[in-house]
């Protein structure tokens, strides 16, 4: 009788030991998961706080604008007749392709021409003596790229924009030039207004 009681007790202890080992194992997995999570949080935070980004997109926009101008107006005269046009005679949105610049999807380039009576008028308008350039109608516009990217520029210029957005801030360059346009054999004086936008590379 005593022997039987002892045997039963031993069996119960063995079962309890097995359960304990199982519980210990589960606890170990939980601890391991917790430790891995903490490690990732530490690494993630250090990556965010110590990350340093150098933004060169404004310079890229300037170089892009220069490349487009060198291609379009090599000698101060823009040959409008040589630019590809659609069935309605409107210039196609293929400015980058025309200048053989790699279109990586990061760029928006726009060139607007406003007709003037003479090149002297360009300087008069620049000084504000004759009025504002925006009052003169645009004769033609050459462009290529996604104009919708301008919202990222506006968003990053907002005072309330988070500092993190500077990493995604697009580069922008604007300029204007007095030029002649060669169209149907005529030399037309006017002002050329260029805008180049370079969005992030991520």
């Amino acid at each position, binding site marked *: 009788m005593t022997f039987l009681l002892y045997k039963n007790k031993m069996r119960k202890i063995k079962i309890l030991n097995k359960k304990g080992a199982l519980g210990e194992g589960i606890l170990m997995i939980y*601890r391991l998961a917790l*430790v891995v999570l903490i490690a990732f949080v530490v690494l993630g935070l250090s990556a965010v706080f110590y990350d*340093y980004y150098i933004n060169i997109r404004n*310079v*890229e926009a300037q*170089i*892009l604008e*220069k*490349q487009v101008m060198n291609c379009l107006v090599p000698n101060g005269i823009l040959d409008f007749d040589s630019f590809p046009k659609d069935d309605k005679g409107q210039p196609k949105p293929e400015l980058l392709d025309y200048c053989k610049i*790699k279109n990586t999807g990061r760029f928006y380039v726009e060139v607007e021409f406003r007709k003037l009576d003479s090149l002297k008028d360009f300087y008069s308008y620049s000084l504000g003596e004759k009025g504002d350039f925006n009052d003169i109608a645009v004769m033609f516009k050459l462009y290529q790229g996604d104009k919708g990217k301008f919202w990222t520029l506006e968003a990053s210029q907002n005072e309330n924009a988070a500092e993190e957005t500077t990493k995604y801030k697009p580069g922008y360059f604007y300029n204007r030039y007095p030029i002649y346009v060669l169209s149907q054999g005529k030399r037309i004086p006017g002002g050329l207004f260029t805008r180049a936008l370079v969005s992030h590379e991520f």
Partner: protein
Amino acid sequence: MKSKKASLMHQIIVHLILIALIFAMFFMSASYRTESKGVKQQVLEKQLALLIDSAEPNTTIIVRQIYMNGKVSNMEIKQGRIFVYVNDQGYSKGYPYFTKYELGLEKDDENYYIKIK
């Protein structure tokens, strides 16, 4: 009694190993950032991308392998991007360039040569 002690020791050892691993990861990350390999890499890649974009044809850009801030262990030009690996760094996202000219990359014992054709 012995098995309890052994189990406790086993647990302590596992914990110590885990803590050591975390610290190793943390120190590796911290040393990577304090050594500023990433910044050096960014500076070189972006400077070179700007030089490539603004360069005229028949220009050669010479990059010294050993310079005052470290060593350029490797350089690659592929898929419209320039990749610079500084101080045996094994990873780079590269930086895109948009020049319309073709590029060539050559190397000798001292320098890398980026040729704009």
